[in-house]
């Protein structure tokens, strides 16, 4: 074995062919986690026992001559808001500390069935509310590119785990940019699929109408493979799309070959101006030129409603969260703080169990839904969603995909955005896709002047994953080489 096992695709191929065992691959990754894990703090819980059992099962299947599946022996990191049977699932909140779900999320079932090996549950902003992973009750995750900087969030643990080489792929969830923004800040690929393409069953809800699970990977093709495994109808999720999930392989192959002939790409004017760092804008321009070099047509376009996205999001998401998080009342599971009456017990439990950012959003959402304010806030925000869809539809009449920055900045230092509204601006480029229910992904494209990675975002209409991945693959092929994160574990490879 001489080829480096630097991607999920390479690992799965090697494991399926028998040239390396899933157990060897896993142990190499566990060694990397043991050596570098504390510095990054990507995991809330490393699933050593479950991972070893899963790897052994894959090896047994290979020995029997059975195909363990398309992710055979591929280590995968799981955001700690995905339910894993018998394994602590905390959402990085004290209120759920120690809770072990009695069931697996649909996506967890699917990656396990595809032969993936779950290495751990990754850190996040509490209940996925945040853009830096600083709001975790268990402490922040550090960016493998610079340990003094945030990995982004809320899926910061998953993004950092992939950037640090702890697992070639990971799952996160994206409610307003929680996959794409940390992917951008950590220099990895992150995808938010079309709403309904991936089952939410077993994803601990933040804002149900916006939440969507998606992949992290080091390559576009790995992200496509992982999406292929988790996508598809699930009868347990009523919002799951009945007949979706196309094979992304041909689209990725075309993009990698630098073929964007005839693809029309619109750069969103409203997201290419004030508030976007020069480093980011420079890479976005370079990406646009790369698309033209590959035969695509690039033009600037306007999607006016995106300027209302942030305001609408911070009414809708907290409103749904205020209801979704009501169940953490100390009655049935999780932590309880006793009180003289049931009501006092609930108050004390929630006061002690939730962090400030979660409380802030519960209060915002409760207010937005209150009698007398509903129409002015929640109702109006819902109308912005309609407007957003209309404006996107107009743009997609002329363009196949849209291009925008993923995040306004590169990774920022801890504590740099302590003021909530400033932090909320981190998601200004990603939120519109969630409000519209559209797919979007972040692809690493070069670095800023201080060497920190920059991501560009490719947006597509509902179920437009195929053309989105084609453009992303072309950008990946054309992107300047930035190397490996300085604090990553050494590459896995040459195992044999």
């Amino acid at each position: 074995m001489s080829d480096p096992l630097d991607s999920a695709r390479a690992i799965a191929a090697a494991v399926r062919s028998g040239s390396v065992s899933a157990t060897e691959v896993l142990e190499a990754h566990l060694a990397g986690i043991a050596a570098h894990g504390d510095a990054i703090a990507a995991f809330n819980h490393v699933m050593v026992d479950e991972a070893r059992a899963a790897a052994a099962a894959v090896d047994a299947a290979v020995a029997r001559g059975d195909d363990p599946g398309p992710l055979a022996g591929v280590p995968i990191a799981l955001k700690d808001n995905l339910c894993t049977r018998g394994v602590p699932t905390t959402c990085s909140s004290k209120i759920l500390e120690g809770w072990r779900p009695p069931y697996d999320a649909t996506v967890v079932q699917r990656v396990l069935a595809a032969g993936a090996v779950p290495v751990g549950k990754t850190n996040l902003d509490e209940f996925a509310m945040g853009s830096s992973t600083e709001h975790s009750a268990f402490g922040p995750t550090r960016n493998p590119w610079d340990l003094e900087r945030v990995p982004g969030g809320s899926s910061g643990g998953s993004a950092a785990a992939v950037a640090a080489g702890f697992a070639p792929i990971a799952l996160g969830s994206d409610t307003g940019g929680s996959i794409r923004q940390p992917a951008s800040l950590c220099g990895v690929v992150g995808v938010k699929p079309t709403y309904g393409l991936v089952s939410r069953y077993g994803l601990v809800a933040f804002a149900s109408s916006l939440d969507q699970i998606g992949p992290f990977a080091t390559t576009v093709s790995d992200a496509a493979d992982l999406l292929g495994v988790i996508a598809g109808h699930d009868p347990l999720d009523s919002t799951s799309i009945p007949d979706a999930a196309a094979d992304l392989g041909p689209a990725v192959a075309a993009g990698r070959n630098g073929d964007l002939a005839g693809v029309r790409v619109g750069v969103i004017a409203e997201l290419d101006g004030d508030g976007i760092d020069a480093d980011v804008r420079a890479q976005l321009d370079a990406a646009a030129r790369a698309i033209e070099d590959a035969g695509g047509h690039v033009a600037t376009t306007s999607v006016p409603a995106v300027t209302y996205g942030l305001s609408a999001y911070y009414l809708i998401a907290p409103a749904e969260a205020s209801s979704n998080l009501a169940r953490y009342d100390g009655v049935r599971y999780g932590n309880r703080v006793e009180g003289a009456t049931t009501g006092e017990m609930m108050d004390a439990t929630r006061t002690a169990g939730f962090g400030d950012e979660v409380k802030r959003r519960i209060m915002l959402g409760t207010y937005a839904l209150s009698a007398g304010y509903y129409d002015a806030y929640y109702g109006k925000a819902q109308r912005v969603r309609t407007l957003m869809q209309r404006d996107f539809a107009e743009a997609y009449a002329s363009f196949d995909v849209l291009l925008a920055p993923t995040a306004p900045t590169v990774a920022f230092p801890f504590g740099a955005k302590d003021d909530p509204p400033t932090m909320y601006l981190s998601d200004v480029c990603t939120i519109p896709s969630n409000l519209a229910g559209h797919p979007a992904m972040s692809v690493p494209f070069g670095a800023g002047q201080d060497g920190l990675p920059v991501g560009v975002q490719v947006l597509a209409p509902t179920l437009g994953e195929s053309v989105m991945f084609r453009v992303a693959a072309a950008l990946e092929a054309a992107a300047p080489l930035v190397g490996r994160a300085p604090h990553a574990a050494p590459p896995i490879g040459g195992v044999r």
Partner: protein
Amino acid sequence: MSDQSATEAAYVVEGSEGDRWAIVVGLEVHVELATATKLFCACPNVFGDEPNTNVCPTCLGLPGSLPVLNRNAVELAMRIGRALRCTVEPSVFARKNYFYPDMPKDYQVSQYDKPINVDGELALPDGTVVGIERAHLEEDTGKNTHAGGGGRIHDADYSLIDYNRAGVPLVEIVSRPDIRTPDQARAYVAELRQLLVAIGASDARMEEASMRVDANVSVRPEGTTELGTRCEIKNLNSIRSLGRAIEYEARRQVDLLETGERVRQETRHWDEDGGRTRPGRSKEEAEDYRYFDEPDLVPVAPDEAWQAAVDANLPELPASRRARLAERAGRPTTDGGVALTVERDLDALAHAAMDAGGDPARVLTHVEHNVPVEAAGGLDPAQLADLVRLELDGALTATQAKTVLAEVIASGRPPADIAAERGFEAMDTSALEGTIDEIIAANPTEWDDYVHGDDARRGKLTGFFTGQVMKATKGQADGKVVNQLLGARRAAALAGE
């Protein structure tokens, strides 16, 4: 509400100064649907199992769980709607947010501003039509048991929660405030219950709480049209409680208003033992439920084919069955025996016996009085028809027919055979005449009184002589014939004077 004036006159609460107050009642009835599984998960919908055995991540509201709508619950909800002459509309589930330990998610999934059924009506047996505002789907909560503190949560030492009921499908049927008397309220619930059972939507047992009734009660001066402030009465465990609670509550409100106080809009609990309502939480400080559309579910829009199938599968409803039976038996539609027969589901038996040639009036009388519900299945309608025929031919008296019918039901043997065995051959008139003459001769004083006494006296003595004849004939004489013969003897005696 077209018959408002007529019905208001039927129930009036009199004030101290002779003022007359009318009552206005609207009912909210929750019924558990008779589905095999719960509304949003595959757990069994069963009453009375060991606590917390029929539960799963979804009905326990575990983090990450999601609801999936039970198609059969939608079907039954539509059946209820169509049976109540509602329009089925595209509907949306919403979340009703409030904290309570028996509610796993601390919100209830219910239909709020877009319910599945709207604008229906229910006709009561007495002809009153009560409007139905809506009948919507929602999930039930778990069940708390509070230990100590009189069974109320506030003073309990501890509480136990059973989530078997959490997520059981409910339909809430909301009437318009069209009810004007306690009797109408009782009749409404009885009629609704019968309808729900008839269409197979619910077993509708108030005692098992699979049917729960809340009453909104207000009063206003008789003849006025503005609605007074209402109170919602809960904890009504029987149809009888409902009537008592309305009467009590109306009196309480009138007394308040007459002493210059006002009625506070609030929820009150019926105290069955104390025979009174007690205040619960005040609705004036009502909780804000912060309703919004449930994002985990999609809108429900039954297509025309589904609605047509629901309509086609609806059985004949109790009102129509009553009308059909009454007409055939020659009784008024509002007849109590007709209602009872339909309520007991014995109208099919009655029709079958009539089809087999039994006289409709006599058949219905027997089904109403002489056929126990639990034994009705064993009765061959043709034999009932035969029995009625024997009776009308004069071969059996009414009393004998009743006795024979009981034996037909028990043994399944032909009525004629049973009558013969028992010696229930109707006596011929000449033998009866001899017996009567003997009895007259043996009781000369009574006979003289019978012939010459006033009507009241003669009435009493008719009973005496009939009793004597029955005694002598061991009950085989036909009472009507005895009466006729006594009358003829009296006429002869008077003529001979």
